[in-house]
């Protein structure tokens, strides 16, 4: 199967300190990969490199068949990112936030604005995409409220809506369950399972083993900037805890 994401021998130095040391990772469509590791293991740095926000010091990165280090602007159309920070403007409403990001993606990613150009104008198509994304995270009722009035969990849901707005084939998530209540966490798990079923791929970093393993097809342990273990079957919190202790 052709990899949607292919990272080979990725290395990253912060000053003289190596944060990632020769990380290689292939992710195919339909895969849900969890990357686990203690604080400081390099999970967030790896995810930022995969999202083309940080350049590695060495290695190669291909996303959707595009050399993401040579043409990151083209590769970004394939990526949706949920990071530690929400990337949400607090003084815009939920709808205005998504419309802004939709315009930033839609101008290049024609899927967003031109998918049904015979039936709808670009703007009405963007509006329907925004509505669809807000409904999927149960925020449509609060669409015209300023994001600054949202709770932590609602912000996280809006962040997820922003990441899936342009229907990216690759979803990158950095500790996405942080701050979510039980219902929202279940909603997110369902959304991620659905994403994988639609032949998209998900790469997620986490340390909350009990809440976030639902639907995971492969788990990797990252320690000191290296992938030390990989688990493809019987992915349970107990098995991963044992591997992390071993690592």
């Amino acid at each position, binding site marked *: 199967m052709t990899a949607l994401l292919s990272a080979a021998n990725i290395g990253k130095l912060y000053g003289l300190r190596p944060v990632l040391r020769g990380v290689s990772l292939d992710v195919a469509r339909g895969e849900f990969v969890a990357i686990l590791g203690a604080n400081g293991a390099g999970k967030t740095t790896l995810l*930022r490199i995969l*999202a*083309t*926000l*940080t*350049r590695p010091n060495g290695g190669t990165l291909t996303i959707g068949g595009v050399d993401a280090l040579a043409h990151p*602007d*083209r*590769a*970004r*159309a394939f*990526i949706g*990112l949920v*990071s*530690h*920070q*929400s*990337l*949400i*403007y*607090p*003084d*815009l409403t939920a709808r*205005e936030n998504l419309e*802004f*990001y939709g*315009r*930033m*993606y*839609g*101008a*290049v*990613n024609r899927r967003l604005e031109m998918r049904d150009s015979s039936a709808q104008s670009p703007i009405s198509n963007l509006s329907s995409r925004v509505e669809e994304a807000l409904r999927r995270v149960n925020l449509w009722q609060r669409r015209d409220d300023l994001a600054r009035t949202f709770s932590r969990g609602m912000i996280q849901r809006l962040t997820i809506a*922003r990441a899936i707005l342009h229907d990216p084939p690759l979803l990158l998530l950095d500790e996405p369950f942080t701050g979510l209540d039980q219902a929202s966490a279940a909603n997110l798990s369902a959304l991620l399972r659905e994403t994988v079923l639609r032949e998209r791929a998900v790469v997620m970093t986490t340390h909350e083993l009990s809440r976030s393993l639902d639907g995971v097809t492969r788990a990797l342990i990252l320690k000191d900037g290296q992938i030390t273990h990989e688990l493809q079957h019987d992915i349970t919190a107990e098995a991963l805890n044992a591997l992390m202790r071993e690592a």
Partner: protein
Amino acid sequence: MHAAVRQIAAIVRKDILLELRTRESITAMVVFAVMAIVMFNFALRLRVDTFRPLTPGVLWVTLVFAGTLGLSRSMSSEQINQCMDGLLLAPCDRSVIFAGKAITNVIFTLAVALVVTPIMAILFDETLLQPGVWLVVVLGVVGYAGTGTLIATMAASTRAREVFLPILLFPLALPLLVAAVIATSGFLDRLPLDEFAAWIGVELAFIVIFWTAGTLLFEYLVEG
């Protein structure tokens, strides 16, 4: 419309919407500029009989200081919730983001100039409201916003960004300030255009150099 133009328009539209909602940048810039003019008015009244020779200098120092407030705010709004990462994730060339932020800064600083210049015309020199001066103001503001957006991006990644911005920006923008002051004086003193046209050329050169540098260097300034 070309994709990059639409993305630039999206950034400008978003920044204007944020400003209309919060009124943080332009309000602060206008209040600062008006206070500076009033203070100049009283301070200088004690020493000189006529303000006319001082008008260009007062105008430009006021616009530069007020503009710096807006530049600082322009980048700090992208630091909240790390929204800059949201811009950087968009499938576009980094120069699109620079252009969007710089155009926003031009619009905000010109809005301040639209308020400040008539006030200065009342207090300092009624001949200030003439097309030639407006040309110099527009060119000067475009040049300053381009330079300032580049430096504000650089300063945004430092801890003491409010301190670094003026320290880095003012020496760099000094030639532009000198050119703008001399060109403004030329129009106010009704000198023949060829006596100060070279200074308008300096303004244009600033625009070309720093907007080009911004589009080329922005990627490296925001790179993690």
